[in-house]
């Protein structure tokens, strides 16, 4: 190792980056190319008698003919958009509250952050059982006290419940970034604005929010990327149901892979998912490039 590093001084540095590039490229890019290839193949794992054959664009024709596909694409976008909006609003409110000086401030911050570091499996399970269960959860108990019919969260209101869970987990991430931004706002600017008689609402909209533009962008972009991939929460609570109401594209890829064992169709859905994310990545690309230029690594 030592020898290698000293010789590379005279030759090249590429040995340093090679292992990382190879392993990342194999797992992400080579495998994704394989997915694209498989999306043109007809292969059902549990029906070896049918064999494997080239299917052309038949898999894509199939998924675009299936009416649920449009619902699933809609779900993916709607879940992400609604959760992001709520996370942003709540994250902003929490950040403003937590940015003040008050006793036990650090403890409060910690309380808000905890859900972000929990695995989705636990989040889904405790909300589904302890909190929102129609007969034995806290909400069920409350409706019993008031003699009203318990709300069937993961049945009738599955879509909203999934969003509640995502928002609970991801708002802390927005708090982390926006709060860090608020702490960077120049206090002298706010003081002088106060002396000039500006109201706190005016200070919020004319000083704080413009100063936080970068942070809000970062939080929104990263949040979007992560929320698009949501799987665990859906898997442990609604299993994509009832019907297709809470199925998003990642869950659909899983379902086609492990219930239908149809390699080609699952790969087609996966490719569709990437195509959709790609549009978002393009937006991010411009954004990150700008930031990199600004920071000059």
């Amino acid at each position, binding site marked *: 190792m030592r020898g290698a590093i000293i010789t590379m001084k005279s030759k090249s540095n590429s040995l340093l980056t090679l*292992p990382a590039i190879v392993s990342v490229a194999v797992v992400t890019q080579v495998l994704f190319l394989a997915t694209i290839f498989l999306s043109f193949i007809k292969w059902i794992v549990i029906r070896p008698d049918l064999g494997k054959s080239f299917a052309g664009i038949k898999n894509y024709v199939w998924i675009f003919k299936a009416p649920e596909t449009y619902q699933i694409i809609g779900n993916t976008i709607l879940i992400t958009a609604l959760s992001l909006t709520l996370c942003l609003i709540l994250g902003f409110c929490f950040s403003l509250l937590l940015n003040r000086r008050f006793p036990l401030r650090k403890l409060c911050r910690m309380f808000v952050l905890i859900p972000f570091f929990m695995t989705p499996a636990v989040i889904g399970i405790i909300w589904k059982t302890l909190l929102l269960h129609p007969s034995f959860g806290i909400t069920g108990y409350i409706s019993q006290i008031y003699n009203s019919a318990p709300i069937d969260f993961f049945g009738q209101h599955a879509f909203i419940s999934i969003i509640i869970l995502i928002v609970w987990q991801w708002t802390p991430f927005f708090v982390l970034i926006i709060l860090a931004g608020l702490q960077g706002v120049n206090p002298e600017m706010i003081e002088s604005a106060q002396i000039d008689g500006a109201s706190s609402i005016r200070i919020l909209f004319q000083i704080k929010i413009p100063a936080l533009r970068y942070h809000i962008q970062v939080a929104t972009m990263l949040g979007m990327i992560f929320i698009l991939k949501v799987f665990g929460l859906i898997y442990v609570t609604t299993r994509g149901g009832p019907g297709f109401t809470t199925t998003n594209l990642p869950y659909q890829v899983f379902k086609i892979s492990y219930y239908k064992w149809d390699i080609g169709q699952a790969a087609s859905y996966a490719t569709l998912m990437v195509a959709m994310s790609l549009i978002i990545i393009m937006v991010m690309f411009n954004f990150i490039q700008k930031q990199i230029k600004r920071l000059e690594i």
Partner: protein
Amino acid sequence: MIWTTSKKAGDSMITFLTYVFCLAWVFPVYYMVITSFKVEESVIPPSLFINKFTLDNYAIIFDKTIFSHIVNSVTVTVISVLLCLAIGLPAAYRIVFGKMKNPANLYFWFISTQLLPPCAVLVPAFLIMRWMNLLDTRTGLILIYVGIHTPLIVWMVTSFFKDIPIEILEAADIDGCSKWNAFLKIIFPLSKPGIISSALLTFVFIWNEFFFAVNLSAIKANTLPVYMASFMTQEGLFWAKLSAISTITILIPVIFGIISQKALVEGLTMGAVKG
């Protein structure tokens, strides 16, 4: 005078509201933890305090099965994090200090791989693992996790390396210090807190990873989150025990996450935001 008192009252109102909101946010976690110390019969009707404290739930769930899943989670996560560090640190080093022509391109390439949804590689990953007999093994999971999470290390550590003033390294170079020594004696000590935080956060992400864990393991290699999910469907309404397993599952990542939250902000926002 009246103005100041009303302002004070308003201030304490807002503080009070902050307490209410924060407690409401953490309530599910609190309720889960207290339920894990309740006797199974007293879980329903729900109560906000423990009426009869017991450690039985923990004693009962700590059998061989859960122990093997804890071992799975720890081995998979620790080995993956170490491997990510082993290949991610040199890459970050070269991006920052390696005098590359266009380091931003490589840096951005690493970040862009994070945007790929895991489901995009599931099908071939499954087929290859099946072909190599790696399904339901810890090795299989580790191989995937290293490929997926190395960019996170590069992404975060790069921003900590950038904080090191280049003048120190130039001075060391003039004094005849080899690059390897410069790394060990200057770069590593200066960026140690950042590297440790990045490692802890990668630990949290891998520990909590669910998609590949559930799809590429069945029984033997199940990590804790996957075991959790199957426990619910198999065991039904043993909620105190379910809460005990949940508490164990989140304990380490929550502690690590809280320790390293500042690094998350600095790292992911490319150093432009100091937490």
